[in-house]
């Protein structure tokens, strides 16, 4: 039987690459491009992908990145396609005035840059951390570093000056507060909004009361993510014990539903990790989330050496229908797909258009969204919307 090739559809290729990783034959390129977080590559049709390239993960991958002249191509052994390596932002090599490497604070993932003001997560202190997290992220439960507002502002300035991305994405782990960590993030969000005309996203854990969600929006967050990660209740309890016992799936649903009423259409999102639960269960999660107005984002689980959580077998043929289902579900529920786009770590709904309909991914509208004018417009509209929607009761007349 002829071996199936994904090389000619960038969207399917992205999925297959994320699932299987790639080998890199040139040791110089490998050392230069392949960090622990994978290598960022631009596929045809400006499809950005972050591909795992650590040896233990990619040993059996059919893909190989080769140098061709001054450029690169990716081959699966049978055919190949031209790609380009995305250079690491130059600010990664610089430091804040206090001496912290910018790369410790900010990491670029395409259209957004993740800022982690403190890599702490209290789940670790209680030994209820998410099972997939411990090996994959640089997170600790200790009273670890907290970067100051000034340090974060310097990092954001570097990101924006270099036009590395236009969305600043604050990420925070679990803290045992009613506010889901908003109190901690507040000075950072306020400072960024005060100093720069950029969009801000917040990834946090659901707060206990909905008014914190309102406040997150009022403070200046343009997008919010409460990542459910796993829809199947039993697997959720096993794999994410902290989230299950200290927050609970029900609270995730409530918080997401409320957030979807407060934030603009398409800006409330939640991850469902593909590969940690059966595809059918992920599809049910997709339907549930898009039904309440939330964008499901489907990252692919990347196993680490000592954690074999993955549901097997897992290959592109099995998970492609899940992504197609995602696209259809989003369209059916009329969710705006323009916010979650051009992200290296996940396949976005805009990219899925070509898998489902065969159309080219990028249209004139997409070009506008990526242009300077488009970004300015998005920022202006988001600011205006907030001005109209937020009512400050303290400001009322007698």
């Amino acid at each position, binding site marked *: 039987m002829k071996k199936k090739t994904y090389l000619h559809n960038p969207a399917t290729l992205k999925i297959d690459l994320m699932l299987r990783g790639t080998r890199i034959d040139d040791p110089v390129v490998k050392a230069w491009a392949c960090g622990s977080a994978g290598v960022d590559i631009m596929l045809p049709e400006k499809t950005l992908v972050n591909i795992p390239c650590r040896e233990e993960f990619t040993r059996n991958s059919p893909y190989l990145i080769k140098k061709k002249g001054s450029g690169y191509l990716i081959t699966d052994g049978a055919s190949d396609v031209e790609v380009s390596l995305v250079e690491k932002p130059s600010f990664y090599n610089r430091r804040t005035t206090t001496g912290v490497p910018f790369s410790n604070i900010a990491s670029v993932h395409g259209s957004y840059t993740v800022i982690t003001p403190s890599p702490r997560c209290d789940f670790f202190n209680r030994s209820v951390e998410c099972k997939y997290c411990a090996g994959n992220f640089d997170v600790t439960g200790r009273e670890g570093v907290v970067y100051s507002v000034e340090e974060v502002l310097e990092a954001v300035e570097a990101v924006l000056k270099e036009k590395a991305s236009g969305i600043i994405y604050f990420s925070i782990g679990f803290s045992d507060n009613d506010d889901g960590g908003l109190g901690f993030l507040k000075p950072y969000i306020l400072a960024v909004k005060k100093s720069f005309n950029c969009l801000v996203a917040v990834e946090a854990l659901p707060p206990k009361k909905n008014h914190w969600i309102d406040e997150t929006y009022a403070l200046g967050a343009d997008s919010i993510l409460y990542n459910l990660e796993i829809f199947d209740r039993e697997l959720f309890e096993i794999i994410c014990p902290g989230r299950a016992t200290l927050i609970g799936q029900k609270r995730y649903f409530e918080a997401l539903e409320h957030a979807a*009423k407060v934030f603009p259409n398409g800006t409330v999102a939640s991850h469902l990790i593909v590969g940690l639960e059966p595809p059918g269960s992920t599809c049910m999660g997709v339907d549930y989330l898009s039904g309440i107005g939330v964008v499901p984002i489907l990252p692919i689980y990347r196993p680490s050496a000592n954690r074999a959580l993955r549901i097997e077998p897992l290959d592109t043929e099995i998970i492609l229908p899940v992504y197609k289902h995602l696209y259809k579900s989003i369209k059916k529920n009329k969710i705006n797909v323009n916010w979650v786009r051009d992200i290296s770590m996940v396949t976005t709904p805009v990219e899925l258009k070509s898998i489902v309909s065969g159309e080219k991914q990028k249209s004139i509208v997409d070009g506008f969204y990526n242009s300077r004018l488009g970004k300015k417009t998005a920022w202006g509209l988001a600011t205006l919307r907030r001005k109209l929607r937020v009512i*400050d009761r*303290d400001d009322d007349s007698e």
Partner: protein
Amino acid sequence: MSIEIDTRPIWVILLLKALRPAFYLAVVLIFWGLIAMPTPEGLSIEGQRAIAIFAVCLILWVSNIVPLAITSIFAIVLVPVLGVLPKKETYALFGNEAVFFILGAFILAGAVMHSGISNRLALNIMKRFGGSPRTLLISVFLLSAFLSFFMSEHAVAAMLFPIVLEIAKGLGLKPGKSNYGKLLFFALAWGCVIGGVATFLGGARVPLAVGMLKETTGDTIGFLDYSVAVFPLVVILLAAGYLILTRFFPIDIEGVGSARAVLERRIKGLGKLSVIEYATGTVLVFTIIGWITLGEGFGLATVALTSVVVLFVFKLVKWKDIEEYVNWGIILMYGGAIVLGAALDKSGAAAWLVKSSVGNWAGSPWMAFALFSFLSILLTAAMSNAAVIAVLLPVSLGLASKLSMDPAVLTYAIAVPAGLDFMFPMGTPAIAIAASSNYINVKESAKGGFIMFITAWVVFNLVAAWWWPLIGMGYSR
């Protein structure tokens, strides 16, 4: 910050936002129309302008589109600019005794609250008399009323709210469900409202009304005279309020043991009576005696401000401690209302308005009394009570001379009902505070409040007809 997100469709919000400028434009057009129209017969040009200012302020006060105080400042600006009164006279009106009395009362109340004596008194009374559900309820009701005799009813509601909430939680009462929970918070709110009309101190509206009366006619109302006149009203309303509440919401608990534990814990937390509490309480007692005995001669404001000086001389309170209790917005609002009242009166506008409008309906003194008291109690359900006085009093005083009525009686007719809002949270902060507990909702408040509204108006008119002649007051001079 207290944030709310408007989740209505964006076009609805935009439309409503667009209404605001349209509203301002309409106000400007009305103002301009009133100024530009030919001056009616019998009205001076200054009178016409005063009416135009009055109309604009009326619209702004009722709509509350800008803070009440800002509307008042606007009146102060317009009166001299349009030549209704000379600017010197306009600003001098702000130095009215009533304004300073209100300022003094705010500072005194702030000192009393800050010292902790009022809190201690409240807790001890509740503990002492609250042995059963019924007596605890009566204690909350009467205590709210009693404290509102001496302090602004809003301050009393704010002070007692956390205690009552803790009691309700201590008793395990379910918000929105428990009858006893509703009773406690209604008792708090209604107690404050009823007690608030008993003296000059329950709210700043009575001093404001008296200030306007003095500015317009030279007459005044004494501290004690006022309380004697309204005393039966307060007693009857307290009894009626209790009956109505317990009929609407029969007591549904057996014992209050856990509430007593809450009270005991709180009292323990206060420690022993401090010198500052003791001294502040003494100053307050002497101030009240001063108001009763020296008020006529020296003026209520003088007595209040003397006590304020004493508080500071003896270092019983610091300026920064009482600053949060002084509501400058209310003071500005009242100053402006007095200016506007004087402008309407001195320009002849008030008399003209009466002659050409209300005067036709209010043919006799008792009818005028009934009409104005009804308008006042009705408007106060929707408007701030200060605004009700600012709007109704100048017109009613104009009517007094036409009907040969005692203007002081008409001042009562407006000032007292203006404080009697039992229905809606927007009219009275005491109800708003109680409603914020989630134990009672607006619908219940409106239902019970409506019966109280009717009762209060009828009782007030009966008191005026039967009690006042006994103490030497009458509709006519």
